[in-house]
């Protein structure tokens, strides 16, 4: 019995690391965008498009890392579109996000059809579990380098927000557009760049889905991870480091189902599939308030009252 529990826990740890990586990238990207005072709900579409482009480019060039970069570019293209549209007066950024979600998914499915069958070269992993004889532990500790890239980006972002002129500029634009204008900052330009940059990161998150875990391209690859990551940013109170922790938490929740399956518990499979969504909703309920703004929220953000 305790053996089974250990297997589940180890599988959950490995799963948490694997499942959390796309969450982390999307959340970091969205964190950057929201710090500038804009919400991009279209990250779900960005994630799916990134997954498709990453897979396709990896297939054609033979290099998964070129695929990752291309996925980032595709993501930033979608982000740039969102950023350019939302600068127009009387255009609602939440609604544009929904439209981008549909559009990104549609484009990805359209061009992704020929890539469902062929196998593209995947990203390799670093075998941290090599010391152990335990096969479960070894497979759990095969960590994709992108996971560490994400953590480095989170650290860099946290540092940059506090200590650099760029970070200050983004925060000012996000907290008070009027103050930023008075300082001679082009609010629209900063938001445009922040949304495009956020799209780049989300695209990389998508490439992780198709090139590492689950590691293939199909139309059911992402089901709401991009959206949950947006909710996760609220929970992480717009801090890149807390985004990483929140992503790990979500990864753990998402790994419960497969981990239980690995020891033969198949009952409630769909319930455990739904666990991350339920967790997101519960977290949103717990962290929101009808009367106060969320803590540490950028002042210009329209999404959360």
């Amino acid at each position: 019995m305790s053996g089974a529990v250990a297997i589940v826990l180890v599988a959950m740890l490995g799963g948490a690391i694997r499942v959390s990586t796309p969450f982390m990238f999307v959340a970091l990207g969205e964190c950057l965008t929201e710090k500038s005072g804009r919400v991009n709900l279209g990250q779900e579409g960005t994630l799916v498009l990134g997954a498709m482009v990453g897979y396709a480019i990896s297939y054609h060039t033979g290099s998964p890392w070129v695929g990752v970069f291309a996925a980032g570019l595709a993501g930033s293209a979608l982000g740039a579109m969102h950023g350019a549209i939302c600068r127009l007066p009387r255009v609602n950024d939440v609604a544009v996000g929904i439209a981008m979600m549909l559009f990104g998914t549609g484009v990805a499915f359209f061009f992704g059809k020929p890539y469902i069958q062929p196998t593209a070269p995947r990203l390799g992993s670093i075998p941290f579990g090599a010391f152990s004889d335990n096969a479960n532990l070894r497979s759990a500790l095969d960590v994709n380098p992108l996971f560490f890239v994400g953590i480095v980006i989170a650290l860099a972002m946290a540092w940059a927000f506090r200590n650099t002129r760029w970070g200050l500029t983004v925060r000012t634009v996000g907290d008070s557009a009027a103050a930023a204008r008075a300082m001679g900052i082009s609010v629209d330009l900063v938001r445009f760049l922040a949304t495009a940059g956020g799209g780049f990161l989300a695209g990389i998150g998508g490439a992780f889905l198709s090139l590492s875990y689950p590691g293939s391209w199909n139309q059911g690859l992402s089901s709401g991870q991009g959206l949950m990551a947006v909710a996760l940013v609220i929970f992480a109170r717009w801090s890149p480091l807390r985004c990483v922790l929140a992503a790990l938490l979500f990864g753990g929740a998402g790994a419960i189902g497969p981990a239980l399956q690995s020891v033969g518990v198949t009952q409630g499979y769909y319930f455990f599939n739904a666990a991350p969504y339920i967790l997101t909703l519960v977290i949103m309920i717990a962290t929101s308030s009808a009367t106060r703004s969320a803590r540490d929220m950028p002042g210009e953000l329209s999404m959360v009252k």
Partner: protein
Amino acid sequence: MPEGATAADGMSASASPPAGETAMGEFARRLRTNSEYFAIPLFALIVAAMLFSLFLLTIGKSPVDFVSYVWRGGFGSAFSFQNTLQRSAPLILSALAVAIPARIGLIMIGGEGALVLGGFAAAAVATPLVGALPPLPTLAIMFVVAALVGAVWVGIAGYLRYARGVNETIASLLLTYIGVAIMNFFVEGALRDITNPNKPSTKPIGEAYMVGKIPGTEVHWGFAVGIALAVVLHLLMTRTTFGFAARITGGNFRAALAQGLPVGKIIVACAMIAGACAGIAGFYEVAAIQGRANASLAAGYGFTGILVSFLARHNPLAIVPVAILFGGLVASGGLIQRRMEMPDATVLVLQGLIFIVLLVSDTLYGRFAFFRAGEQKERT
């Protein structure tokens, strides 16, 4: 609004109303002002169609072929047009599920989840009733249950919005994923029809218990019910005190609170009406089309409904023609796929494109002097 302001922002030379204003002139002026809400979405549709044609040309397909297949597959013959109307029924209902909350300023996109759960609940409640009760009461119970389940489902998002300030857009979409998971849980488990090895489904409700067609057509009653609901909800939102209170809540939340309006109840009620509409859509998908609940309930009607509602500017009456247009597009999807050898996601690309262009066109309102000509009169 003083004279000078109008003259300054709009070059509207003809704006000043003559003293002996006729009823006809007043009508023409109103028509002119309101035509903005028709002309700009239409313009957006045309621009989106042009962009999509460019897209088709760059991948080496013919836009003319595309249009002709949409025509043939969706509108060209009595058969295809009835198919279109059939498919527009869930679109009308799930667009209403977006439009009603939009009237109070909430962007709720949980129609797909309420549709799936409503349809599933209808099928689940039918399982013990089939054979025990005659068809008509069974269908009535299924209808009510589907509407109630849908209402509760989207109502949750409305309640969370009011009581906890939870973002309703994200919450309603999360509830959609949860709803689909709940249906899959039961359909693959406790309520699975074990005699059907192919696709996990609930037990079929049986031919005798299916909803019939509108006499003289091949279109099921869901279409008529959709139109009736659109009319009723239009009247509710424009002609009743509830609709008035809802419009105030949407226009200025704080003012509504200060007035002592029951803001919380209004928000939850609008969310529940929305959910009920989507649940009813699910009922007709089960009781008139599929005959059972399974994964094909999540066919994306709820998501297309979002676009339909935005294109109709959240006006329940305008939703009907827009839903028929998109019903035709959905109906011709198969034909386009086969004849033009394009993936089924083509329709998704077109919808996304229309949605984006439409939202961009929101920036055009108030920029044309032509539509402003009658405004001065209305403002006094």
